[in-house]
């Protein structure tokens, strides 16, 4: 049981590290919007003021960044399954 928990913790750590890396590869303004919104807890209005743009532009950046991160996570999950199934997995990401 303890081993299972440790393994899950390691999986989380790996995902977090991969996600942080993916965020760092976003356009700088998109990464900043993600960081201010999800990590620092600012509202869209505050982020807009900080980034000197309209709130609509903040949403645009967030949606653009989220789509990129979503694709990244899907690709990671697909690769992980392929690895577990000996490279013979050809399913679609959930």
């Amino acid at each position: 049981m303890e081993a299972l928990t440790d393994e899950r913790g390691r999986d989380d750590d790996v995902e977090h590290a991969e996600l942080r890396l993916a965020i760092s590869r976003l356009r700088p303004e998109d990464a900043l919007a993600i960081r201010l919104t999800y990590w620092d807890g600012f509202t869209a209005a505050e982020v807009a003021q900080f980034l000197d743009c309209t709130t609509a532009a903040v949403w645009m950046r967030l949606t653009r960044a989220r789509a990129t991160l979503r694709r990244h996570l899907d690709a990671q999950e697909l690769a992980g399954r392929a690895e577990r199934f000996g490279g013979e997995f050809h399913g679609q990401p959930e």
Partner: protein
Amino acid sequence: MDNLSDRIRAANPEAAQPLPERVMAGLDDIMAGRRVPQRTTGSRERVTHRRWRSVALTGAGLSVVATLAIFAVVLVMVTRPQSAVAATPRPLQLTETESTVQTLREGVMSVSTSDVGVGSTRGATWEGWFLQLDADKPTATYIQPQRTQVEWNPDLSGTSRITAGAPMTSEGTSIHPIPTTADQPGTTLYEETWGPGELAVPYPKSPPEHAAAMREYLNSFLDEQGLADGDAATAGEYLFAVTALLQVWTLSDAAQRAVVQVLLEAPGVEVSGATTDRAGRNGIVLAVDPTSVDAGYRSQVVIDIERWRILAVERSTIAGIPDFHVPAGSITEYTLWR
């Protein structure tokens, strides 16, 4: 269930190394007013010291790469610009009107409500322009508006597309031939398709069609944005909320009237005059007092008092932007809905 937001939050590197010393020093300078963060896209007032401090303190959790990315942004923000003057659209020309806020309130409330229940539709199209100040690029000598189209579905999937409009002079006259630095009109500048749950729509629920319900609807948005401090919202705050609403919903006539009524009944609004907007439509101009978010900027709303709908929203800088030689009173942003 979409848990992308939770996964992003969980990836917050709480215990990573602090910001580099030179970044902290730069942020301290900004907080102390020794440096002025430069506008990178135009229209917002300087960030507050509180906000910078918060960012600096919580910045301890950044990964090195992300830190460098942010530092790069800060550096761009404090770079001083070139000496060219940025072109801005001519302010709307006002003529006298007999309308007052009171007569407008009475007017919008007197309209028959037989059309209530038609319902608004998801998605919106608007045209607009905002002042882009970028120290790394030559300042444009023409105005090139953009047309934005957003379509979305109840599952928060959708598409958004921005296309270039026709370049024009500050006076609104078409420019021929197209400047070599301008985008060809109709060129797609940005296009994206969003999967289920990916579009961050600020108003997922259908807009109400009565003023009282609309006020609550907008108040909820302001609450979520941290802009409602328990006091009654001002017209400027409602205008902020309404502008966001009109970017994702095409309002029914009844919902438009409800929005106009909410604005007219809020504190901080007065009639400036009558005008013909940038799309050639006649309307009444409402001047809206600046809000805490928009300190330093004046907002105007053009409303059609025959159909009681919002035609356009414009913002101008009160004191100007000296770094970019933008004079006081210059238009920094406008949006119009056809």
